[in-house]
């Protein structure tokens, strides 16, 4: 049973001030996402990936051939756990408290992220629905493309403040705004 540390979000101190309206380039922090780490047993890798891909309201994030993150912004932890239990050959653990989920969107999103990532984000090589583990602002993060100009980042909780500050600095030239997605 994870200790619920999310009553006060880890980025609460970083998001304060008077800006209330989001600019076209916006970084939104999702308050209480449900995040499960899923490991596929040997021989079940493809079946587990397929089951996660077809799940309703659960986004599957690719980490390695046998490791995935299941992310949901709408379903509760109990419901996701129930779904994962039904997948044969999968082990999972609730990591909701261990990760921070941020969504960055806007016309300049690639220019902003190119200051933080050393990976080619052109749609031809990193298309919609693609996700991978990579270094973001010197932190091992999971980056996913959810739309043409929308990306989602999963960052370990203890590094989220540093990544958030670097993202805001990278986005300052593009008038990046930030806020909780409520």
């Amino acid at each position, binding site marked *: 049973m994870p200790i619920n540390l999310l009553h006060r979000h880890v980025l609460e101190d970083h998001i304060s001030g008077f800006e209330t309206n989001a600019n076209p380039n916006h970084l939104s922090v999702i308050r209480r996402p449900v995040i499960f780490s899923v490991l596929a047993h040997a021989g079940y890798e493809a079946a587990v990936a397929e089951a996660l891909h077809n799940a309703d309201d659960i986004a599957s994030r690719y*980490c*390695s*051939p046998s*490791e995935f993150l299941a992310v949901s912004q709408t379903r509760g932890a109990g419901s996701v756990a129930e779904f994962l239990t039904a997948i044969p050959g999968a082990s999972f653990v609730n990591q909701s408290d261990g990760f921070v989920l941020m969504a960055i969107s806007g016309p300049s999103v690639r220019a902003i992220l190119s200051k933080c990532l*050393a*990976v*080619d984000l052109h749609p031809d*090589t990193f298309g919609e629905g693609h996700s*991978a*583990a*990579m*270094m973001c602002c010197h932190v*091992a993060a999971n980056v996913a493309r959810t739309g043409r100009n929308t990306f989602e980042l999963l960052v370990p909780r203890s590094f989220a403040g540093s990544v958030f500050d670097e993202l805001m600095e990278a986005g300052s030239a593009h008038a990046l705004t930030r806020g909780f997605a409520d």
Partner: protein
Amino acid sequence: MASLITCPHCGTRPKEEFSIRGAAAPKRPAPAAKDEVWHRYVYVRDNPKGRVLEYWHHVAGCRRWLVVDRDNFTHEVFGVMDASDFERVRGVE
């Protein structure tokens, strides 16, 4: 040093995401092998100039062990494979 490594699971990545362990060419001897053979496996390494096989760990990516076939003089990378595939191929030979 080769600056871009194409991980078979993650795609082309900068070398900063990896940690290098060492030569992949030495084969682990049988447990009952002679002390001299074990000494050679554990301590004695060639220091070649040119093409080398090395274990690289993709720390900030898929966290898998890879075997990188590269030239330490020209920095050219000839191929990258998962360490489990490397062992399988080597076992067959």
